[in-house]
């Protein structure tokens, strides 16, 4: 079973979300990077842009696959990981740390409550594997 930190929230599209005060940091899960394989390209939105929950905000590509990144919550992008486009392999090496994608200032607090807890996500992944 892939690493699923207990203090994060998750989506069924395999993004994680971490509350940091009034902001939310977003990335993809260890399971997601494992499924993708070697990440060779990351495209992120610019700071100041808007993201909408359940809609694509960026793209991650591995050697064999192209995948959209989906926003766990709506809001304004206040930070984007400028290092990732230069070092896409960071997503594989440290998906919950240096491999983060964006930080969002959320516009709808209710969306946070709808995200999966760690045990819920773990169960979801286990079921998806069968």
């Amino acid at each position, binding site marked *: 079973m892939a690493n699923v930190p207990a203090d994060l929230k998750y989506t*069924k*599209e*395999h*993004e994680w979300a971490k509350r940091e005060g009034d902001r939310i940091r977003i990335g*993809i899960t260890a399971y*997601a990077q494992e*499924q*993708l*394989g*070697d990440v*060779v*390209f990351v495209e992120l939105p610019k700071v100041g842009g808007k993201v909408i929950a359940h809609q694509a905000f960026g*793209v*991650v*590509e*591995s*050697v*064999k*696959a*192209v*995948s*959209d*990144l*989906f926003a766990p919550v709506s809001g304004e992008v206040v930070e984007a990981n400028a290092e990732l*486009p*230069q070092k*896409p392999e960071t997503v*594989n090496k440290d998906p919950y740390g240096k491999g983060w994608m964006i930080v969002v200032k959320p516009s709808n607090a209710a969306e946070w409550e709808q995200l999966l807890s760690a045990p819920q996500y773990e169960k979801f992944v286990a079921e*998806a594997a069968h």
Partner: protein
Amino acid sequence: MPVGALTGPERGWSTEALVDTSLKRTPLFDAHVKAGARMVPFGGWEMPVQYAGIIEEHRAVRTSVGLFDVSHMGEFEAEGPQALAALQSLTTNDASALDIGQVQYSALCYPDGGIVDDLTVYRLGGDRYMLTVNAGNIDKDWEWVTSHAGAARWRNVSGETALIAVQGPRAEALVGRLAERDVTAIGYYRFAHGAVAGVRTLISRTGYTGEDGFELYVAAGDAARLWSALLESGRPDGVAPIGLGARDTLRLEMRYALYGNDIDATTNPLEAGLGWIVKSGKGSFIGRDAIEKVRGTGPTRRLIGLEMAERAVARHGYPVVKDGTPIGIVTSGSYGPSVDRYIAMAYVATPHAAVGTEVGVEIRGQVKTARVVKTPFHPSRTKK
């Protein structure tokens, strides 16, 4: 990032269809699963796409040695006094030039010059040949060769034959250690018979990576024994099992065509850069007239190598543009681990095919700059 989207653009890489029980398995299936490989459907087969990771596996082949299970590929034997005539009428290359023990890269073409398949032809004996064809084309090719050159005695030995490729700078040392005969004497595109790890093997100095190495043809029942002997004996060489993912990036860096991606029924050998395997002087063969017509006028498009100016993955089917006008289409593309560049193969209209030409590749609605470059992208190190 939906798991449903965790699929490649090339056909057959989907990770979703694993429940499809109609997929065929090679004799090494259990060994792959035990080694932790990710299995995916490819050309009707359930094959390992990666073990440790595509880039790591790619590097292992370039720096030491890798093992590939390519048992999904098909093998046909043609025998008898009519065998050579059959091959001469079916294939574009000149099979009469083959010595016993020699291999030739060739193609089967339709009358309009489109490609049925690309293949290698082995001269096993005076009037005995073996053809190695692409896995996804076995049924189509079998129907084609037996219906167009039925005078030869044909045998489809695909099911009883396993094929293990050993590729990389340490391949000769590894195979040499296990072989009863001196494999250093086997030249490029030559083969010999001999036991490897006690298994009867056709040892062929061929491959699809641009590295020195061998392709070992064995009976299906012996494949697992040979595979584990190679892994065991190759440990000091840094041997690694290699999946189809790295097989694809390795061949892309060499600009080797992949049937279904870069060549198919709608492409002719000349535009694909395969004029060197078309020997029209040998006499009549299926497709010759159409190909010669193209040779007369020159192909209207050419398969070229592209290097992206920035980080961007050009993939199969993406449009190639020049000043806003479509001029071609990408057939294969990836990050090339050994060249550390984003590279692609594409058909472009002949006026734009010269090395150095700047073009654009349209990726998700955005045009990214690319340049036509010399190929192979990475220098070949096959034995000469």
